[in-house]
C-alpha cells in the first residue's frame, strides 16, 4: 500500500514537473513609468521594493513584472535582478525560465555561489542531474565551506542511489564547521542548566538531519532485504518496524512537503 503511494507520487512528480516547466511566458518589454526620469539606482530600488512587496503577498505574476522592469528595461546587467526574478519564477514553477535567470546571473558574475546553488536545485527538479552535480560542485570549488552545497550534493547523491556517498558528503560538511564540538558541548553532562545556548548558523546543523534520513533509508533497505528473503515467514516485528519507518517518511518527516530539507538561497548577498 505504502509502496503504491510512493510509486504514484513519483509518477505524479515526474508528470507534473515538465508540464509546469512548459508554461513559461514569452518575455515582453513591460511599461515601467515610475521614476522614469530618475537615476538608475532610484528606479532599480523602486522596482525591487515593489517586486518584493508583491512576492511577499503572493502576487507572483506582478512580482515578475516588477523584476522584468529591472532586468529588461532599466539595467540588463543588474545581477541581483536576475537572482530575484529567478527565485520568483521558481516559486511560479517556471523552472526552465528560472534556470535561464540564474544562468544570466552567472554569466555576469561567475563567482556567485547562490546562483550556482539555486540553479543546481532547479536542475534537480528538472531531472538534469549532471547539470545539478556540476552546479553544486562549482559552489564547493568557490567556497569549500559552503555547507548548503554539501547538503544539496548529498541529496543528489542519494537520488543517484549512492547513500554511502551522501553520508560521506554530510560528514565532510560537519567537519568543515565547529558544529560537532558545539554538539558535544551541548551533550556534556557537566554542562550547567543555565548555560547560554551557543550561537551558530542553523544551516550547519542540517547535515545531521539529512544524515538521519540517509541512515533511515539504509535501515529500510535492510528491512526490505530481510522481508524479501524470508517472504511469508518474516518476523512480524520486523515487518511492523519497516511499516513504521515508511510511515515516518510520510507523516512525521512530511517528505511530501520536504522543502525544509533542500535549500535554495533566495538572497544573493547572504553568502
Amino acid at each position, binding site marked *: 500500500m505504502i509502496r503504491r503511494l510512493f510509486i504514484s507520487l*513519483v509518477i505524479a512528480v515526474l508528470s507534473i514537473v515538465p508540464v509546469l516547466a512548459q508554461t513559461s511566458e514569452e518575455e515582453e518589454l513591460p511599461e515601467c513609468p515610475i521614476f522614469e526620469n*530618475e537615476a538608475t539606482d532610484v528606479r*532599480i530600488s523602486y*522596482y*525591487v521594493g515593489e517586486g518584493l512587496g508583491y512576492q511577499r503577498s503572493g502576487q507572483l505574476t506582478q512580482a515578475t513584472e516588477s523584476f522584468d522592469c529591472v532586468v529588461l528595461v532599466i539595467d540588463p546587467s543588474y545581477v541581483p535582478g536576475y537572482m530575484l526574478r529567478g527565485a520568483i519564477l521558481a516559486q511560479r514553477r517556471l523552472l526552465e525560465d528560472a534556470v535561464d535567470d540564474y544562468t544570466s546571473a552567472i554569466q555576469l558574475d561567475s563567482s556567485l555561489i547562490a546562483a550556482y546553488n539555486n540553479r543546481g536545485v532547479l536542475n534537480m527538479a528538472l531531472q538534469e542531474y549532471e547539470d545539478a552535480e556540476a552546479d553544486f560542485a562549482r559552489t564547493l570549488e568557490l567556497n569549500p565551506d559552503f555547507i548548503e552545497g554539501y547538503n544539496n550534493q548529498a*541529496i543528489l547523491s542519494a537520488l543517484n542511489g549512492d547513500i554511502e556517498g551522501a553520508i560521506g558528503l554530510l560528514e565532510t560538511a560537519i567537519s568543515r564547521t565547529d558544529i560537532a564540538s558545539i554538539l558535544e558541548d551541548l551533550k556534556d553532562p557537566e554542562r550547567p542548566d543555565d548555560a547560554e545556548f551557543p550561537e551558530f548558523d542553523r544551516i550547519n546543523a542540517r547535515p545531521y538531519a539529512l544524515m538521519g534520513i540517509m541512515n533511515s533509508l539504509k535501515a529500510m533497505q535492510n528491512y526490505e532485504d530481510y522481508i524479501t528473503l524470508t517472504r511469508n515467514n518474516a518476523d512480524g516485528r520486523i515487518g511492523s518496524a519497516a511499516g513504521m519507518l515508511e510511515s515516518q517518511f510520510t507523516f512525521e518527516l512530511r*517528505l511530501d512537503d520536504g522543502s525544509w530539507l533542500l535549500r535554495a538561497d533566495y538572497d544573493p548577498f547572504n553568502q
Partner: protein
Amino acid sequence: MRRVILCFLLCLAVLPWNSSGAQAQVSFDCEDPLIPNATPAYFLGQGNVFVEQGQYARAVEAYSCAIEGDPSYAPAYAQRAYAYAVMLDDQSALADYDQAIALNETLVDVYINRGALYTTLGNFGLAIGDFSLALALEPDNAAALNNRAVVHAIEGNYDLALADVNAAISASPDYVASYATQAAIYTALANQSYQTFVDRGGAHARLPAGQPVNVMSAIDTSQRTDDFGIWLRLQVPAGQ
C-alpha cells in the same frame, strides 16, 4: 527501495521555493534592503504595493522607513500623506503634504492630492489654489482640471466648471473621469433649469415632458432607439 528515495528526493527538489511564501503575513519593518546601494525608493515600491492592496497602515510604515532613511525625501512624504488621507487622518496627511511641498515645490501630484483633501474638508478656496498651482506647473494636467471643475461645481460656478472639464477632455480624451464630471455638471445645470421653470412658471406649472428623472430615461431611450418622441413634447406652438 530506489523508488522511495527517488520519490522523496524529487518531492524535495520541486518544493524548495515554497518556504518564502510564509513571509506573506510577517509585519512590516525597516529591514535592511535586499540589494546593495538601495535608495529610499526601495521602500516606496513596497509601500505602493500595500496601497494597491488596501493595507494603508502597512503602507504608512513602509513610507516611514523611506523617510527614516532620508528625511529629505519628498516623494515618501507625498505617498505617506496619501495613505494617511485614505485612513481619514487628515491632520497627518496635511502635515506630510506640506512637508513634501516644502522639500520639492514642483511635485504636481502633491498639489492635486492636497487639493482633493482640502475639497473633502470644505476648504474650497485652498483647494482651487492647489489645483491652480498644479496647473501652473502642468497646464494640461487632466486630474487637476477635473478636480478644479468639481470644486467650481460645488460652489455653483457651472460655467467655470464646464470650462475646466472641457479643457480636461481636450487635453486627455482618454481620461474617463472627466466625462463623468462633465455629465454631473450638466445634470446640475439641468436641475438649475428645471428650478428656473418652476420658479417662473409657478408651483402648479406642468413640466411639458414630465418629471426630470422620467425625461432622463426617455432621452436615454431616444438615443438608443432613434425614437424622438420625447423631444416633440418639448415643442410649443407659436403664440402660447
